[in-house]
């Protein structure tokens, strides 16, 4: 056990902090409207230009080759400085790990740097109208033709799909296959002929979702990631990272807890907040801290050659419940003002998607019970 940082890590933190404090924009609108998205892309490009977009990637793709520890430090400083949620996150945190693991050198060259630079903006095409929690129910199909694949079908709940340039997703390439078999992982430029994107509104009113329709849309063979008909196992690598370490760094919740404590203090000062909220303010602080400690434990294991396993399921339940509780507590401090739009009410609405997306918390509990505790499937 050694909970101190090395001089190099301290230096990395100092550099990150001073750049972020000087550069993080505080007036960005929501990234889930067309105008807001464009502003966020500017910020992503500034990050890239200063090599802060993907610190843990190799330098050749725009990173700093930073360790997982340094990545954690960066994330902590990013959110402490008030950095906005990354609109590039689906590419960087979900697609990129898969490209690093399964992509050909050509694909890595073609995809990664442009993704980091926010020149190509990736959205996720997992869900379909009848395949939400049950991802294996995918019916969108890819048919082999000379030199590539022809796509037909529909994806939905595609976050920021209306603003992105590229989509990654699973398509049924073997028409006789069922469930997890016969799927292929494909990369699709959204300006491909036969692809139509229709944005639609999320709970918070922003056009953050899209449906994507495919009608005889052609993609070349070079856009298959991993093996043909092997898409399920390729995709599982990325849903693993979505659930686990990468998408929700502890820094986010530590920063949110610090803001909640500030809110509570200012409210008690003017005689607003009631005592019954205090317990929850303390509780969320402890849970954010525990999330940080749990992550340090995980990163230690990874740094020593271990892997993230099914326990990432409880991790996902923890942060998603914590995120809701942090925001709910803040709204209770705000009282009647919580009826109005504002950072906390917006954040609350966003937090409610946490227990749903990336595998509902019900699915995660099944996974934890079956794969960690070994309880029998039915």
């Amino acid at each position, binding site marked *: 056990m050694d909970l101190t940082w090395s001089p190099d890590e301290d230096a990395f933190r100092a550099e990150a902090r001073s750049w972020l404090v000087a550069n993080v924009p505080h007036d960005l609108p929501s990234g889930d409207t067309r105008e807001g998205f464009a502003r966020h892309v500017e910020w992503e490009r500034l990050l890239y230009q200063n090599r802060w977009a993907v610190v843990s990637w190799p330098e050749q793709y725009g990173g700093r080759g930073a360790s997982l520890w340094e990545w954690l430090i960066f994330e902590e400083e990013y959110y402490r400085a008030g950095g906005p949620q990354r609109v590039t996150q689906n590419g960087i945190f979900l697609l990129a790990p898969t490209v690093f693991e399964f992509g050909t050198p050509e694909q890595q060259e073609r995809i990664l740097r442009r993704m980091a630079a926010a020149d190509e903006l990736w959205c996720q095409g997992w*869900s379909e109208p*009848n*395949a*939400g*929690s*049950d991802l294996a*129910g995918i019916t969108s199909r890819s048919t082999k033709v000379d030199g590539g694949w022809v796509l037909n079908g529909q994806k*939905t*709940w595609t976050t920021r799909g209306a603003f992105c340039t590229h989509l990654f997703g699973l398509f049924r390439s073997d028409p006789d296959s069922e469930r997890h078999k016969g799927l292929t992982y494909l990369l699709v430029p959204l300006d491909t002929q036969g692809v139509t994107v229709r944005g*639609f*509104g*999320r*709970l918070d*009113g922003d056009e953050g*979702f899209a449906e994507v329709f495919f009608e005889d849309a052609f993609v070349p063979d070079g856009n298959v990631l991993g093996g043909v008909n092997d898409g399920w196992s390729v995709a599982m690598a990325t849903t693993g990272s979505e659930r686990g370490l990468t998408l929700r760094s502890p820094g986010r919740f530590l920063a949110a807890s610090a803001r909640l404590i500030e809110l509570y203090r200012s409210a008690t000062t003017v005689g607003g907040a*009631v005592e*019954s*909220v205090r317990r929850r303010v303390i509780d969320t602080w402890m849970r954010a801290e525990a999330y940080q400690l749990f992550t340090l434990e995980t990163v230690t294991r990874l740094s020593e050659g271990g892997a993230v396993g099914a326990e990432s399921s409880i991790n996902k339940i923890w942060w998603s419940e914590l995120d809701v509780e942090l925001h709910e507590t803040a*709204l*209770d401090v705000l*009282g*009647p*003002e*919580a*009826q*109005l*739009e504002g950072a906390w*009410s917006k954040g609350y*609405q966003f937090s*409610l*998607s946490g*227990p*749903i*997306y990336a595998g*509902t*918390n*019900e699915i995660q*509990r099944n996974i934890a019970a079956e794969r960690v505790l070994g309880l029998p499937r039915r």
Partner: protein
Amino acid sequence: MRFALTTDQLAFRDAVRDLLAKERYDDRATWDALVDMGVASVLVPESEGGLGLDEMTLVPILEQTGYAALAFPIVETAMVAAPLGLADRMVALVDGQLAAWADRADVVLAGDGSEVRQDLLAPVEAVDRSRPVRRIGRPLPAPHGDTIDRAALGTAAQLIGLGQAMLDLTVGYVKERQQFGVPIGSFQAVKHHLANALKELSFARPAVYRAAYSVATASTDASRDVSMAKAMASDAASFVGRVALQCHGAIGYTVEYDLHLWLKRTWALSRAWGDSSWHRDRVGRAIGV
């Protein structure tokens, strides 16, 4: 001892329910139809052209307006303003620093019943866009206790209706929606979420009806009973909302599906006229805790 609505009360409630099932929740014509049915003047004495009925008739009706997410100030008008002789106008009320429906109502009243000039009201952005809110520019007289009780009671009734609407919608959805080859409503986790939602609503509703009775009979416990009703209805509806969203999954998280209307109204009303902490505290003081 009889804890149930009368046949007349049920018939009036059902008539309102049927009307609201047919009409748009945010259409002025719906409001006019309700006024024509006498909903706004339930509490107005017959001698003044009203129906001369009491809160036991009105509260189940307000529950139905919650069920429909009606986008007009029916609680403010029928429950609070009508007994003050203002049943002929659509009335918005000042609640703390905020006034919901101010841009839609014929008149905005402060807590002491005095009229509030429109130029004192600044538009603000409400999370529930179907229930616009304005902010009061300067301190106004605090509402009478009776106003708070009446508004909180009517709001509690609407919250029960909102909760019931979200439960019904979700039950319908999970019976239809298939995942893993079966309706998701056949999963025990979904069943247990919805059984809990049913339980919370089923025990909060009698608290609201009892509060209506206490107000109608001018019980000395009326304020305590209203606070219990508002605290329980706020918590129950909020809980049902969470469950409904979770059981719907992503579709519930869009504005193309109606759940969001009820959900946002629930968030708004659970914090209007005293949130559940405020009312719980008031119950505590009433029972000496």
